[in-house]
């Protein structure tokens, strides 16, 4: 449900001129909903950025890099990180 909520909020932001990127835990939901830019991560529910601060920073950097993706949407990329 959280994956749906972030996708719906992202759409409202993009309609108003703000670029967005969603971290996504359930890829199947992002494929159906199509948030404009999304990073699919290899972590269990409850750990959207992984468990330790270093991994969390890496996921954030991966996600933010998608903000400079030339498009077109929907952009759904797989994280290069492995589950920890």
């Amino acid at each position: 449900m959280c994956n749906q909520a972030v996708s719906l909020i992202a759409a409202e932001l993009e309609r108003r001129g703000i670029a967005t990127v969603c971290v996504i835990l359930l890829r199947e939901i992002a494929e159906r909903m199509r948030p404009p830019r999304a990073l699919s991560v290899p972590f269990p529910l409850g750990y959207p950025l992984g468990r330790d601060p270093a991994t969390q920073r890496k996921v954030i950097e991966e996600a933010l890099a998608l903000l400079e993706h030339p498009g077109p949407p929907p952009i759904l990329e797989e994280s290069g990180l492995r589950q920890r």
Partner: protein
Amino acid sequence: MAEISDLPLASRLFLKAYPWRRIDPLPWSPLRKPLPEARLALVSTAGLVLPGQAPFDERVRGGDYSYREIPDDADVSTLIDSHRSGTYDHSGVQADPNVGFPLDRLHELGLRTNARHFSFMGSLTAPGRLVRETAPEAAEKLVADGVDAVLLIPI
């Protein structure tokens, strides 16, 4: 990786049959400036609230679609988990709220963060009021703040 097929049977059946909303037409706003110069805000649906803020209300049918504003200088360690979902392990976010609201991580990366951020509770089986009311309201506030980009985190 989390997959719907890994969830308990009741959740799996519900999610398989759930009418996920397809975003159509698909909006698209390019980033207007290089990332290091962009004003960034965080939106999380991890259901976290600051001490003194009302918890998300479990009694709201379809899920509490309200939001809380979290100042950029908030002490993340004090955030309180009030997410109603039982489908995930809450121990990580309760031990370190940065797991679901990574404001300290954004600061550590030296990013140009907005003065406020937004916390929602993402367990919304009936998201109509989120789409019609609270998501547009929060988005308008971020437009007024001059925010260029938003990172959105589920839990």
